């Protein structure tokens, strides 16, 4: 617990900055949402798009609930990327920066295993991501209420949970990269890449005419806010797949860190 608390404290400042940026983004996007509440123009526009683009723009969600559809296209779709970038950078500093600064000599001179050290830090990172998702969704709900809209609280909490699972995989992957990276600069690039490249890949598959099954080889494929908002179904399958993937990546990170010269 001591190591976990220490790691949480180390992340606090960057967490606050990142949350502030996301909340400001949420406020900006939500402030324009009332304008689309009764607009049929979006629905008309959507109707003229190819099927893949319609799906990308929220599909039935945009038709049935234009405000949520608008928020999805302008904000909610990108949240795993934004939180993922935070997770990627934090994950890379979790090990690689500490190794660069040779701080592990102090910690590993204590009776601690590398596994304990890594898991405590990863635990703190996962906690900070969960808190970031919660803060983001709470901000979204509060700003929607403040704008006189009626937020789908349960639906957005499910969206936050689903997004959290995606960033869980991103962060464990980035921690693995951090454990093996030559230095912090390399680890940070890996962290950013692990967050951004799968997002771009997912976007490309969604636009392309290729089979949508290709989406499910990377975590963003399991993030489907329109479906969650319309059905309120708990994403059991996503939970199973993404938690299993995170477990495998965590095992890999521990293994890499245990073999690593620090």
């Amino acid at each position, binding site marked *: 617990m*001591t*190591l976990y608390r*220490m790691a949480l404290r*180390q992340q606090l400042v960057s967490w606050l900055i990142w949350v502030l940026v996301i909340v400001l983004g949420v406020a900006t996007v939500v402030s324009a949402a009332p304008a689309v509440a009764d607009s049929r123009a979006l629905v008309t526009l959507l109707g003229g798009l190819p099927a893949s683009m319609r799906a990308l723009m929220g599909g039935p969600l945009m038709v049935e609930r234009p405000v949520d559809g608008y928020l999805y296209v302008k904000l909610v779709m990108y949240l795993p990327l934004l939180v993922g970038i935070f997770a990627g950078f934090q994950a890379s500093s979790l090990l690689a920066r500490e190794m660069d*600064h*040779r*701080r592990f*000599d*102090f910690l*590993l*001179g*204590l*009776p*601690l*295993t590398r596994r304990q050290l890594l898991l405590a830090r990863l635990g703190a990172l996962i906690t900070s991501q969960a808190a970031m998702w919660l803060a983001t969704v709470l901000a979204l709900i509060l700003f929607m209420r403040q704008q006189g809209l009626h937020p789908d609280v349960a639906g957005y909490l499910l969206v936050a949970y689903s997004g959290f699972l995606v960033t869980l995989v991103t962060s464990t992957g980035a921690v693995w990269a951090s454990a093996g990276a030559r230095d912090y600069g390399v680890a940070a690039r890996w962290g950013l890449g692990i967050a951004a490249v799968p997002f771009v890949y997912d976007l490309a598959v969604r636009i392309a005419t290729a089979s949508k099954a290709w989406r499910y080889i990377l975590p963003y494929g399991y993030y489907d806010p329109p479906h969650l908002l319309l059905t309120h179904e708990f994403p059991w399958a996503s939970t199973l797949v993404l938690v299993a993937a995170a477990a495998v990546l965590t095992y890999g990170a521990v293994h890499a860190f245990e*073999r690593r*010269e*620090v």
Partner: protein
Amino acid sequence: MTAAIQAENLQKIYGNGRGVLGIDLDIREGEIFGFLGPNGAGKTTTIRSLLGLTRLTGGRASIAGKDVVRESLDVRRATGYLPGDPALYDNMTGRKHLELALSLRGIRDRRHALGIAERLEVELDRRIRQLSRGNRQKVAILLALAHDPAVLLLDEPTSGLDPLAQDAFRDLLQEEKRRGKTIFFSSHVLPEVEAISDRVGIIRDGRLVAVDSVEGLRQSRLKEVHLRYRGEKPDFTSMTGVRGIEVQADSVRFRIAGGTGALWRLLAEYPPDDITITEPSLEEVFRAYYGGEPS
């Protein structure tokens, strides 16, 4: 006396072929062992290998009877470690570091640690980033000693300390020795090693080239002999161990290795007017190992 630190053919060879190329150590309980060598000789790698911080490429080592690889946690429980150029957390105070270290070791009683902090005048309540190099070093020393370990592995411990702090630290080490602690410390400050070590090991290019007491190392090296004569001078060339004889009109100067019994017998027959025998300093011994001076 049992061995507190043992190493058999300890190897840590990096990709460039450098590192520690096979070291044997046998350091007894309650001993202060000085580990001498210039930068890059393998001192830090040896210490980190002994603590299990780096993966060995060969050989084995144990501390307090525990294998440094298989029982690494037990080794670190029994050991206080001061890294060379210790990196601490800039935004944490010394006290926070101390609390973290003691908490992770499961120690609640802070009295021993605070006693050391007082003796070394450690500034516990300032952030690390606000401390000078020497004061950071004091915090790091405190962290190594705080849990009252049986074995201390100290990498360049006096680096950055002012002379007064160095004195206080040496007194502390002597006290720890009297309390039965084993101390293994690396240094390239020769007078310091000379002053406090029971034995000294000299490492060169990853190999231990000499291990002996300070006195023993001096004895093994050449002594400088300078004799003044007004009358007849004896012939020293036939004496074993004598080198570099310079004969002047009224004096003879040479270097001699090993014991001086034969010299004294000859001098009894031919008593000189004046005699000076200079023992080599540890620095000269050290330079001889590094400079290739003939022994």
